């Protein structure tokens, strides 16, 4: 996604009570969580991320990017923060929320054996956070083996089932990529995104906060964002069915929609992978134009263009 600040944001900057999107990245040790986080931190432009990780040691941030390093927090020159979790994730998170910086997104790296779904629960209890997605990174090379390991197999399966979105990483190293993908699709309902070195688009992880502009794409070649707007009310069931039916291909959706069954109120759609949340957001002001942004694979775009 672009980073043009003039585009309208779903989170209006003057509304300081808007909760901060909260993403949990799960997956086993060695799956590539840190590589992915590295890319996000150093590649972030304009978006102020705070990333909570288990161990700085695994991180590889260019020294020039480090603005300040104080104990358990690294401040980057691009405005991002990186903190180590230490003994208590909840405490670290609450301390972070007390900081003066305005954060655009908080990402937590779950420990290798944690159930990322439980960590995402934090956002259900903390009003300053909005649960975004649970993204589980999977090592193509060894996930099948780990899934049957008597010591960690059940932990792996819990993680896969908790995922809203699965990143099938190191796909270039898989002996039989199709076989892994098929196996994974049989284990969990979340859509699967393939990646090498954690090269997934930032928008996939951090959402589509720009609305109202059609994008030419520009993400990794397998992904496109697609923006859609219309003026009349739309049938709730039909729209949700469309998203659900294609939910294996639509990876993310964000929108303000006028549903025919509550035409006077704004409905917010937030979808990450297999998870769709619809919430009411007060009355329409000005033009009641529905806006929806999707991120997905190329094939989905064709489908939507036909609609």
């Amino acid at each position, binding site marked *: 996604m672009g980073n043009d600040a003039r585009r309208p944001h779903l989170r209006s900057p003057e509304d300081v009570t808007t909760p901060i999107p909260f993403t949990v990245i799960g997956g086993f040790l060695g799956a590539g969580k840190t590589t992915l986080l590295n890319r996000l931190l150093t590649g972030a432009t304009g978006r102020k991320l705070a990333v909570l990780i288990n161990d700085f040691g695994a991180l590889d941030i260019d020294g020039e990017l480090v603005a300040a390093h104080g104990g358990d927090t690294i401040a980057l020159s691009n405005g991002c923060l990186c903190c*180590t979790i*230490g*003994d208590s994730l*909840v405490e670290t998170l609450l301390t972070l929320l007390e900081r003066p910086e305005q954060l655009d997104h908080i990402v937590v790296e779950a*420990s290798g*054996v944690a159930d990322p779904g439980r960590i995402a*629960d934090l956002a259900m209890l*903390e009003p300053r956070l909005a649960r975004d997605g649970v993204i589980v990174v999977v090592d193509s090379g060894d996930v099948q083996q780990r899934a049957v390991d*008597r010591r960690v197999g059940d*932990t792996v399966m819990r993680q896969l089932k908790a995922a809203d979105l699965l990143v099938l990483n190191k796909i270039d190293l898989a002996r039989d990529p199709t076989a892994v993908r098929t196996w994974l699709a049989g284990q969990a309902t979340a859509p699967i995104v393939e990646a090498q070195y954690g090269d997934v688009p930032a928008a996939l992880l951090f959402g589509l906060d720009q609305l109202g502009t059609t994008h030419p794409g520009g993400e990794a070649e397998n992904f496109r964002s697609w923006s859609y707007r219309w003026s009349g009310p739309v049938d709730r069931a039909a729209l949700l069915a469309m998203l659900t039916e294609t939910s294996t291909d639509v990876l993310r959706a964000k929108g303000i929609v006028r549903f025919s069954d509550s035409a006077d109120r704004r409905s917010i759609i937030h979808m990450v992978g297999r998870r769709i949340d619809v919430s009411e957001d007060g009355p329409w002001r000005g033009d009641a134009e529905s806006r929806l942004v999707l991120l997905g694979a190329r094939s989905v775009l064709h489908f939507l263009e036909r609609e």
Partner: protein
Amino acid sequence: MNTVVYSARRILTMNPNQPFATHVAVRDGRILGAGSIESLKGWGRFELDDRFAGKVILPGFVEGHSHAYEGGVWKFPYVGYFDRTSPDGTRSSGLKSIDEVVATLQAYERTMPRDGSTLLAWGFDPIYFGGRRMDLADLDEVSTARPVVVLHSNLHVLNANTPVFAKAGITRHTNVHGVVKDERGEPSGELQENTAKFMAYRAAGVELSTLLSDGAATWGFAKVAQLAGVTTATDLHNTLPESTVAAYLEASASVDFPLRLLPAFAAFSMSPDDGIARLRELAKKNSERLRFQLVKIITDGSIQGLSARMRWPGYYDGTLNGVWNVGPDEIDRLLLAYHRAGFQVHIHTNGDQASEVAIEAVERALATAPRWDHRHTLQHAQMADAGQFRRMKALGMCANLFTNHLFYWGDVHYAKTLGPERAERMNACGTALHLGVPFAIHCDAPVTPIGPLFTAWCAVNRLTATGRTLGEAEKISVAHALHAITLGAAYTLKLDEELGSIDVGKRADFAILDDDPLAVAPVKLKDIGIWGTMLGGRIFEAPRT
């Protein structure tokens, strides 16, 4: 050079060359010798002190697995099922129903200022209440004007009243693990997971870890240990923030501090590189009464909490396997780092799969970095079987078994979590002894009260709270149990050359008892009165109530 010879009814030394004595000579805080008055005369002038002439002296008890939180919790009312002694020696009676708990809290509430401050209580355990759980209405009867939080004895679960739930914003719509709902779908008042609990603490304005580990808590812990005859105890999992270290340094600097305290550094709280550096730095501050030298790794959860990692066939009642706090890969990584750096690592393993993973981690660490006399110790190892004990022996590992569990949760393990066979063999002291695995036994205070004689009683009698005997073959003799709470425990802390027996040159640390543990009926072992302790030659009499 002042020498005092203490006479006693009997002295049990744990020194096989001279297991029993009538006199012990103390000089400069150390043991000059033990034997008869005749045999001690050769050391020169001494002062004879007969105040213990009717007492029985043992080496000071060593509690290898406790937590200093035990000293902090006493700032708050105790509402547990079993009787329990506070640091000042007063005894709180066990509360036998939820109504009794509510009544006790109501009475306490009336003594509190009317300022809306939080009422926090601890030690609650509903397992003997016929399935009835505490709910919001129970605690609302205590107060709706202030937050009320009741911590369960396992420290993993809490109950709170409506003001706490309202402030935390927990409603029927809160679909979060650990928020227990009743049959109508409303929150019942019980919170089970860290996340939910933390929100309740915050709503109630409770900073638990700070409340439980300040200076007063450190003193409280030493005092409650002293009452039980303990002269050396661990605080076996602490992230050691500056505030806690400062509290420990200050308390232990006083000669009146009645305990040798060994905190174990929580390995998972920072990267091994940072942790090793921090521990080495802290070790420079070591003194007679404070030692930074232990490292702790927590692998799984607890058996009664159904979060222990079990091997096949898993939980008796079919509950899914528990969770890893630190998974196998991380255990390997942390253990190897601290092992290489020369530290002794204590590994919490409740379930038998956790024990297996820990044993294999030690095996790999030794293959990578051979090392003698590491004494890495499995803490709890409650479900370890003979095969695992054989591997521990072969690898030079120790075990610290949680025999108090047999009494407090033995019935639940028999009926629900483990089933008869594994409940019978749990905390297998007999097997450890036969196979020659050095072992200690422990209380895990504040999970169960600190009291090595009670812990020894559990190892000897293996009786549950309802009177069932668990595992005749795993019983050990009183003499072996006494060894496990003195020299045996000292060995698992690498302090056996310094303390743990009454022998020339060792620290003058004694437990002073009213009766002879080897003379009373084994089933009366736990009832022996404790007069007090001696620590480095200083006498600490226990307050009597």
